[in-house]
């Protein structure tokens, strides 16, 4: 069973995409990302005041990790903002990958499906390889595929909630209806079992941040997630038995002892 898979033509070993935010320190971030075994790290751009040197230090820690970079457009509320951030990210990070976020509701940090489609279309025309952060709406995901997204990342639940997969049925339906798209559950994962569940549904990967960064021991939690993601994938590839409504004995009934004999 090969561990290699591809995303927009790039070969990856791990199915774990990890965020670089919210860690207690940059050193702990580095340890956790290394322990995760992730090949892909998400990061962002923000205004930087001249007085603060944090941006340069952060970048040095990221460079040391040697991972593929997936810059995001977090915090953007319009296609225009997201497009500008994507173009700046491409120049700075020298990658045409972009995790596209266009937020429609600040309370839920819920993606704006209309803005997402508009921005995705413009960015794909501009040569970007778009990783859209979407809701679990099947039709939205179909439209994103139609535009040329080879990867789609529906939410499990709202960002940072740790509620796991709110709607496994919707996620399964997307998997079933879009067999050729690389699907990652992005956001809302709280426990390794949530990540394992996503992989058992046939998702190609998981993107998460808070559940590792806010663990008491982030590096060990990263390892736990790595194992869960791998277990879920192996289970999916091995063929999970269908659930039944009634019991079926696992021990053979033929040759059962005397109390079953008339």
């Amino acid at each position, binding site marked *: 069973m090969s561990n290699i898979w591809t995303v927009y033509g790039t070969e990856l070993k791990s199915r774990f995409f990890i*965020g670089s*935010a919210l860690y207690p320190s940059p050193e702990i971030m580095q340890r956790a990302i290394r322990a995760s075994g992730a090949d892909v790290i998400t990061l962002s751009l923000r205004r*930087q005041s*001249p007085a603060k040197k*944090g941006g*340069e230090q952060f970048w040095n820690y990221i460079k040391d990790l040697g991972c593929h970079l997936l*810059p995001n457009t977090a915090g953007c509320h319009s296609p225009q903002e997201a497009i*500008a951030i994507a173009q*700046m990210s491409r120049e*700075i990070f020298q990658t045409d990958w972009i995790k596209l976020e266009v937020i429609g509701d600040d309370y839920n940090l819920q993606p704006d499906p209309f803005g997402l489609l508009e921005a995705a279309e413009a960015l794909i025309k501009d040569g970007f390889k778009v990783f859209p952060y979407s809701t679990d709406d099947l039709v939205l995901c179909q439209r994103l595929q139609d535009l040329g997204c080879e990867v789609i990342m529906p939410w499990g639940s709202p960002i940072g909630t740790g509620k796991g997969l709110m709607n496994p049925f919707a996620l399964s339906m997307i998997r079933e209806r879009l067999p050729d798209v690389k699907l990652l559950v992005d956001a809302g994962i709280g426990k390794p079992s949530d990540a394992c569940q996503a992989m058992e549904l046939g998702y190609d990967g998981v993107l998460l941040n808070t559940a590792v960064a806010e663990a008491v021991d982030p590096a060990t939690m990263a390892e736990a997630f790595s194992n869960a993601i791998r277990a879920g994938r192996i289970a999916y590839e091995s063929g999970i038995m269908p659930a039944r409504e009634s019991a079926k004995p696992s021990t053979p009934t033929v040759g059962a002892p005397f109390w079953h004999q008339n």
Partner: protein
Amino acid sequence: MIQVSINNEKQTLEPGATVQDAIEAIGLADQSMLGVALNMTFVPKDKWEKTCLNDNDQLDVLRPVSGG
């Protein structure tokens, strides 16, 4: 003189000042990892010296930060 908002702070610059002048005016010495948008439109690095600013322009100068 013209007034330009750089990262949401007002700066007074000479008429004809460019994006490059504005970045230098706020003292960002290391420019290797900066991205710039003028009025929410991306300005590539090779255009910084040729792009002139106008009164009331909004310039965003961004650096890498952590993200999820």
